[in-house]
Structure formats: structure tokens, C-alpha cells
């Protein structure tokens, strides 16, 4: 067997996490650099995966297979298709920016009660030290490792293990490292933060546990956890799931992914979690971790339960539509910048789910592109918002005004991020949103039409956000606001370049994704409806 590239891509950040956590308390900066280097090395590995992957080759490539827990019929099976490769690349790409953007987020604050009560001298004498900085970066790397391996797993059990396990580091990231910019007192902020963390964990844990029951059920029915084995058994007719069983199992899986994605009405944890965490962690949640949910819908819901997926499509499409409209409407009404972006994300996840369950190749390609593009655009918008918030110390839109006169670069990047969010032609998200709508329209015209309302609302909430914060008279509190620093520019410039690049020339990405989507389409035995008007391509 050749070099286990996929394992290495996941193990590297995991090892990096352990080493980072072990860096001595005084070497805070070293821990940061270490984490950054590890994430860059992971990016290099992910690029290698991207290069070695042949879009027109086998469905799963770079496969690895080892025995793991024979008693449960579980194997350590990895393999990537085009969708997986795209998302691994997205993850590995975003993590270095997340680390850079969060460079100072976990520095021990001078007002920490532990310090004031015990004093600085005592702190160094304590046998075990509270090392928030090391912890923060180690947890980010741990999340990266788990997310990457869940994109690679072709064994349901293996996927489940990491799908669940990633909740724990995420939980500590949300609950342990809150946004310093909050409205109330310290006590209040800490209470809200742990509320958000617990809400995040409980929602996802309940989803995961229900999925656990379905995973066990799947094993009882199919006798295997391997995607390929189950697909083969289905193809040669040796596996014949009863209709009701398949539907129940599908629901068990879908519930977990819908919580993760998140889909209305299981979305309520997201605004809390994104609002209370720091901007980089919020990006981690929405741009990286949540993608596992939508990815899993494509790979597991459609791949394992094609008939049940079709059975559930009408309901899921309605839920997706509600997510699109409801998320956008609530985004319009938000007063808090981060919660606004969170609701915008809910709207966007609606589009992704819509694309997946439209059951057309344009829809599913669009959904996959959407996952990548939404990751980049939300990262850009949220990180700039984070820089903005850290300058003023407030998340409220009303506290800003006229920033573009004081900090033009910041305002400009914020605008580009915002325009990407509303899918302006020329920026990457436009392509994916267009494909999703075309795909949906081809099969369900009414659904397509309703979904377009979401675009209009997106324009409204983004532009109003920009107008209220960046234009108008300069508020006195804002007047001394510094523009983007070098570190912040390093974070933002590549993201914006990518948004423009993929917007103008999305072909590499579509070439990567399309064959994989064809496979998924053949899973559900669907062909695209004949186009009545030559428009799609």
C-alpha cells in the first residue's frame, strides 16, 4: 500500500493539536506559530490530495482500508470523491486564516478573576497552569482533524465516531473562548456563552444519538458499515430493505444532519453559538463544521437510502424553503452583526439542502459548489466583521456608522464579503446559487420561484448592514478606528482573491465536482429532466 495520504491529512492536525496543547504556558507565541505551521502543512497535504485526485477516475480514490473493530464489522476505510476533495481543500484552506484571525483571541485577559485573586507570582508557581492560548489553537486543530476524517470516511461507523467526537472540541471552543465584545457584565456574558455552548452540544448530541440508533439499525439490516459493500449488496439485490425500515433509518440519519446543517426548525442553536463565540470560531462552525452535515446528506442519506430520500423530498424541500425565507427575514431584523450573519447562513444552508434534494445534477453540483463558496464568503464577511467588532467592542449595528471614511480598506473588504453573500455575479457564490436555482427549477418550478425571494432578501440584509455600519456620518466612538493591520490583510486578501477567481472562472471546481455528482445521481437513480429551454449549461 502506498503512502496513506488521507490518513496523514487527518493525523497531522491531530498530532499538531496534542503538541500545541503541550507547549509550556510561557511560550504562548510559540504555540500560535506551531499551530499556524501545522495548519499550513495540512493545507499542503490537502493540495496534494487535490492534485493526486483524478476527477474522471474511480468514484472513491486514494482509498485506504484496515481492519479496526472486527467485532462490530467496522473497518477503517477512507476514500474521497470529488465532493470530499473539494470540502477537504476548503477546510484545510480556511483553518490557517481562522488561526491567523484568532491570533489574539485567546490571550489571557488581564481582568481574569483567577489572576486578580491569586496574583501573577502565584500563577507561575501552581503545578498545573491554565493555558487558554495553547488550548484554543489545539482545539481548532483537533476540530480540523476530525472534520477532515469525516469527509474521508467511507465507513458509516467511522464517520459517526468523528461526527460525534468533533462536538467536544467545538463545545469547548464556544464555551471557553467567548467574544469579548458583549453587552452586559462579565458574569452575564459568561452565562450566555455557556448557554450557547450547552445549547450547541445538546442539539447536536441528541441528533447524533438518534443517528446512533439508526446506525445500529443499519447494521442489523445490512450487516455492514461499508458504503461500498452496502452499495454492492443493493446493486446485486442481496440487500433489500423494507420500505418502512429504510424510511425510519433515513429519518434517523437525516435528523442528525439537519441539526448540524442546520435546517429550520432545528437551527436555533446556530445564532447563539455564532453570536457568543469569537469570529474565527463562528467561521469554524458555519464554514467548516456545518458542512459536514450537508456533505453527509449527499453521501449518506442519498447514498444509503435512495428510495427513502425520494420519499422525503417534498417535506425536505419545504423545510429548505422555509429555512431560506425565514433565515433571510430574521437576518433583516437583527441588530447584532454576528447574529445577522448567522441567520444569513441559515438561509444559505436552505439553498444547499434545496440543491441536494432537487435531485438534478445542476442542483447537486450547485449545492457542492455552494458549500465551498459559502465557506469562503462567510469566512470573509465574518472575519472582517470580527475585526470591526474587536475595534469598537460592540456587536450592535447601531453602534457603528461612517466607518468607510475612517477605515476604507476595512469597509471595502466588508463590502466585498457582503456582496459575495448576496451572490453578486462575478463573485463565486453567484455560480453556485444560480446552479441550485436552475436545478430546482428544472424539476420543481414553484420551489425555484419561491427560493428566488431569498436572493432579494439577501440583498436587503447585506446592503442595509453595510449602509448602517459603513456609510453615513462618522460616529464619535468610531472616529479613531484604525484600518486593517497587516495580519488582518493577510487573512482577508486571499479570501477575496478566491471569491473573485472562482466567480470568474469556476471551471476547475465544477470539473472536480461534476463526476462525483453523477455518481450520487446514479445512487438515487435519477436522470435530469429534459430541459425545455436550453439554459442550464
Amino acid at each position, binding site marked *: 500500500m502506498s503512502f496513506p495520504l488521507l490518513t496523514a491529512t487527518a493525523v497531522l492536525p491531530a498530532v499538531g493539536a496534542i503538541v500545541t496543547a503541550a507547549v509550556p504556558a510561557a511560550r504562548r507565541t510559540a504555540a500560535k506559530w506551531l499551530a499556524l505551521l501545522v495548519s499550513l502543512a495540512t493545507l499542503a497535504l490537502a493540495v496534494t490530495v487535490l492534485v493526486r485526485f483524478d476527477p474522471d477516475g474511480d468514484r472513491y480514490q486514494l482509498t485506504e482500508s484496515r481492519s479496526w473493530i472486527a467485532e462490530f464489522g467496522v473497518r477503517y476505510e477512507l476514500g474521497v470523491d470529488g465532493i470530499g476533495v473539494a470540502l477537504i481543500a476548503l477546510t484545510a484552506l480556511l483553518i490557517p486564516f481562522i488561526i491567523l484571525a484568532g491570533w489574539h483571541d485567546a490571550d489571557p485577559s488581564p481582568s481574569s478573576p483567577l489572576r486578580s485573586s491569586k496574583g501573577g507570582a502565584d500563577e507561575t508557581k501552581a503545578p498545573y497552569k*491554565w493555558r487558554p492560548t495553547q488550548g484554543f489553537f489545539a482545539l481548532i486543530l483537533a476540530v480540523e482533524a476530525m472534520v477532515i476524517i469525516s469527509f474521508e470516511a467511507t465507513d458509516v461507523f467511522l464517520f459517526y465516531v468523528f461526527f460525534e*467526537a468533533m462536538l467536544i472540541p467545538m463545545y469547548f471552543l464556544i*464555551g471557553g473562548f467567548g467574544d469579548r465584545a458583549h453587552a452586559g457584565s462579565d458574569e452575564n456574558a459568561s452565562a450566555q456563552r*455557556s448557554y450557547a455552548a450547552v445549547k450547541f452540544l445538546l442539539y447536536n448530541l441528541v441528533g447524533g444519538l438518534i443517528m446512533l440508533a439508526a446506525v445500529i439499525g443499519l447494521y442489523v439490516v445490512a450487516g455492514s458499515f461499508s458504503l461500498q459493500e452496502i452499495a454492492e449488496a443493493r446493486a446485486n439485490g442481496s440487500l433489500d430493505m423494507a420500505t418502512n425500515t429504510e424510511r425510519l433509518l433515513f429519518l434517523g440519519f437525516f435528523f442528525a444532519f439537519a441539526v448540524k446543517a442546520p435546517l429550520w426548525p432545528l437551527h436555533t442553536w446556530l445564532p447563539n453559538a455564532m453570536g457568543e463565540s469569537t469570529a474565527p470560531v463562528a467561521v469554524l462552525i458555519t464554514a467548516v463544521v456545518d458542512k459536514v452535515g450537508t456533505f453527509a446528506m449527499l453521501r449518506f442519506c442519498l447514498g444509503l437510502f435512495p428510495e427513502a430520500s425520494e420519499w422525503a423530498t417534498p417535506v425536505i424541500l419545504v423545510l429548505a424553503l422555509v429555512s431560506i425565507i425565514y433565515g433571510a427575514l430574521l437576518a433583516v431584523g437583527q441588530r447584532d452583526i454576528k447574529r445577522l450573519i448567522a441567520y444569513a447562513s441559515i438561509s444559505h444552508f436552505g439553498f444547499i439542502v434545496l440543491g441536494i434534494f432537487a435531485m438534478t445534477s445542476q442542483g447537486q453540483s450547485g449545492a457542492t459548489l455552494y458549500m465551498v463558496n459559502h465557506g469562503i464568503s462567510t469566512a470573509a464577511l465574518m472575519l472582517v466583521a470580527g475585526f470591526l467588532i474587536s475595534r469598537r467592542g460592540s456587536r450592535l449595528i447601531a453602534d457603528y456608522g461612517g466607518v468607510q471614511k475612517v477605515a476604507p480598506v476595512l469597509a471595502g473588504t466588508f463590502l466585498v464579503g457582503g456582496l459575495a453573500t448576496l451572490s453578486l455575479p462575478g463573485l463565486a457564490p453567484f455560480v453556485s446559487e444560480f446552479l441550485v436555482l436552475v436545478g430546482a427549477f428544472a424539476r420543481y418550478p414553484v420551489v425555484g420561484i419561491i427560493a428566488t425571494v431569498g436572493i432579494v432578501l439577501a440583498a436587503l440584509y447585506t446592503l442595509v448592514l453595510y449602509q448602517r455600519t459603513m456609510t453615513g456620518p462618522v460616529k464619535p466612538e468610531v472616529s479613531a478606528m484604525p484600518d486593517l493591520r497587516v495580519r488582518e490583510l493577510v487573512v482577508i486578501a486571499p479570501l477575496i482573491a478566491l471569491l473573485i477567481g472562482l466567480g470568474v472562472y469556476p471551471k476547475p471546481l465544477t470539473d472536480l465536482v461534476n463526476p462525483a455528482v453523477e455518481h450520487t445521481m446514479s445512487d438515487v437513480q435519477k436522470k435530469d429532466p429534459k430541459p425545455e429551454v436550453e439554459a442550464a449549461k
Partner: protein
Amino acid sequence: MSASAVHSLWTMAADPIDKIDAPKIEYGQLSPMLIVIGAAVIGVLIEAFVPRKTRYHVQLFVSVVALVAAFAAVVGLAARGFGTTKAHIAAMGAIAVDGPALFLQGTILLAGLVAIFTFAERRLDPEAHGNRVDSFAAQAGSVPGSEGERAATKAGFTTTEVFPLALFAIGGMLVFPAANDLLTLFIALEVFSLPLYLLCALARRKRLMSQEAAVKYFLLGAFASAFTLFGIALLYGYAGSVSYATIANVVEGNVKTIDPALADTMGNDALLLIGVAMVVMGLLFKVGAVPFHMWTPDVYQGAPTPVTGFMAAATKVAAFGALLRLLYVVLPGLRWDWRPVMWGVAIVTMLVGAIVAITQTDIKRLLAYSSIAHAGFILAGVIATTPDGVSSVLFYLAAYSFVTIGAFAVVTLVRDAGGEATHLSKWAGLGRRSPLVAAVFAVFLLAFAGIPLTSGFTGKFAVFKAAADGGAGALVVIGVLSSAIAAFFYIRVIVLMFFSEPKADGPTVAVPSPLTMTAIGVGVAVTLVLGVAPQYFLDLAGQAGVFVR
């Protein structure tokens, strides 16, 4: 008088007796139990003859050596194939030497060894009058708060009797899951219960609470034992024997000859059902299943924490072993009768354990309710009635016992002026004061909650899979839901430790001796190894999953 003459009118000649069959005892196969109980007897002698100053070290040495030797004996027996091909019944039908028995004995011995380490810990309490003290009362007989107690403390007395007591308990627990007739079962039950009642009463701090716990445990335990004994009598009436194999044969209708002395009762199903219900009731009491769980929180809270950890882990292993053997060896023919009842018990146990735990404010009571919920999960595996069911339960027990001992060992570390600070509010901000201890405890809590990559998940998956395979899908769904409920309170503790600000008058974390560190270290290591690479141990449990009859 001639020899043939009649002695008298009221005697007659007896049958000539050729010889009496000497009982055949396979000492080698019984060696694990013999070693431990022998060491316990030696421990009693040490109390009598060894000077007070050196007793602690001698006792600790003897206990550790005995447990290690007994474990080596178990491994030796297993290596010689007694767990699989050569499984058979020893000691005139009293003791089964087979896979489940050896696996559980090994688990109990290792858990006991780790627990003994926590018993021997003497660095946590501040020194009293220049003497290092452990968690146990200076003199158990002295009235709490009396002059005698002060004198005993001042003289530096320590209750080194805990070591032989623990060894007796372990000895009884070794016999319990291996017992192959009802009388041996009952005797083993008493042999391990009585020392536990005593150990519960020996706390150095909060002695009244400890004694109250012991009295409650004793009274309820005696009550449960009485039920068991009555059930055994009824089963004897039903089958004409206390041997498992014979009862099983009668249940399955393979025995046609009826003992004339029992002609009225033998084969009477009423006796069978009532008898089984009573025996099982006694076992469910020891397991801590609802509705026989009432003692658990009080006893877990009152007992000295090392004892609680030992009890929670080892008793559960032994009692589930005995329950498995009873249900799988004696009563497979009756499974259509007991399965529905056990379904009900498992469901209420899972739900009550998980729901009531939410309202707890004391960490030891919380862990007690959590142990009830876990008993429910294990029962789900018991209900499977497949070989997978047996091995999944074996694995779960092994995984669970180390997590439990480790968790209670961490509880002993968090202390304030009044001893252990068990109220949850005191744990606020522990993650900031001592991240390592809090992180270790978090690992244990996550294992209890069944998060992947910990032993708790592997165990839970094993029992749920066995239950689903055995046709108990609904039980799995309820199990999963109660896991979700249970996760809530484990997480609450983590929130408290990591996300709450530490209070100014919060507890301190004592730095333990290598003994407790070993106990905790073993707990963490087992938790992670069984979570990440459980294959070897699942194999072991899988091979051990067949009973001998």
C-alpha cells in the same frame, strides 16, 4: 448373645457403608478465589499479631500481592483454555469455571487492585497529630464526636482492617458470578455484602452520614438477601435441587422422575415463577436497578469515597455476572416469561436514572444516579439473549468499572476544610484552578455520556447492537433517548468546571500519592484504549461469551 440378634425393637440394621466419596476439589481451578480469601484470613491475623505501626504497609503489601497473584491465576486458567474449550464445573458442581466467570473474575481483580490503591491513599487528608491518615475512621467503634474518637485520632490509629475486609468482599465477588448452584450463590452474596456494609460505615469525615448509609445499606441489603433466600427455597421446591443444571433441566421439561418427597410441589410453575422473581429481585437490588435502587444514592454519598468507587464498580460486575448466569444458564427455557419483565425494568432504570440525576446537586449522588442509568443500559444487553449479548455485557462491565473507580478517585482529590467538597457548586471553575484534574474528570464524564473515542461509547454501542440484534429495537431507541438526557447532566458538570468562574473560597485540589495517581491513570488509559482500539478486548469478551452448563 448372637450377632444376628435383634438389638431392640426400635432399631434396625443399617445398610453396610462401603466408603464415602471424598469431595473432589480442583484446587488449581479455584485458585483465584482461594488466594484472595486466604489472603483475607492472613489479613485478619496481621491485625492480631503485627505491631500497629507496620500494619498498614504489611496489609497493603499482602493485599496487592494476593490480588496480583489471583489475577495471574485467572490469566493462567484462561491461557490453558478453561475459558473456552476446557470450561467445566468444579468443586462438586458448586463453581463454574468458564469464559464469563474468568473474564468477570479478571475484571473484578483488576478493579479491586485499583480500588485498593485508593483505599491506601494517605496524602489527601491533612496530617492529624503528626500521623498520616487515610479516608477511614481512626477507630470504627468510637462514637462520633466522643472523647474516645479524639483519643484514637490523637494516638494515630488507622483502620487497617479495611484491607482484609476488601479482600473478603473481593473473594465473595469472585465466587458470585461463578456460582453454579443457588446455595453457593447465596453464600457468595453474603460474603461480599457483609464486608461492604462495614466498609460503608468507616468514613473518617462525616461519620454520622457514613454510619447512616451503612445502616440503610445493611437493612435493605438484608431484606433483599431474605428475598433471595426465600426464592431459593421455592426453586428448590420446584426442581428438587439447587443446582443450576438440574433446575434448567426441570424448567425445560427434560426431567421426568419426580422426587417422591417433593411430589406435591415439583414442576409447579407458580413456585418457579415466584421463586425466580424473588431471586432476580435480590440480584437487581445489588445491581441497583429501578425499582430496587433506592439505597444507591444514600449509600454512595455516605460511604467513604474509595469504598463508593469500589462498590460501584466491582459489585456491579459481580452482580451482573450472577444475573447473566442465572438468566442464561438456568432460565433460558423461561425467557418468554422474564424478558418482558426485564424490558420494563431496563426501561424504567434507564429513564429514572437519567431523569432524576438532572436534579442532583452532590457529585456523589449524581454519579450514583448515573450508575443506575448505566445499569439500565447493561440490562438492555442482558435482554438480548444471544452470545453477543453476553460478550457485550462483559465488555461494558469492564469498561464501566475503570471509569467509575477513576471518577470517584478524582472526587477524593477535590477538598475543602470539611474534607471532600462534593457539592456541585464547589466544583465551579475547577478547570481554571487545576486544568489537568478537571480534564481527567471531563474524560470520565464523556465516557459516562458515551461520546465516541471513549470506552463508554464502545460499550454502549456493543450493548445496543446486541439488543437490536436480539430484537429489542425499541429498547435501543429508549436507551438512546435516555443517553441524551443523561448527557445533559454530565455536560452540566463540565460547564461548571470549565465555563464558570472559580469562587474565591473554592476547594483546593490535593496532590495525591502515586497510589491514587495510578488509579486515575489506569482509569484514563483504559477509557481511551477501549475507546480507540477496543478490538483485542472485544475479542476477549467475545471468546468469553459462552457459559458452561
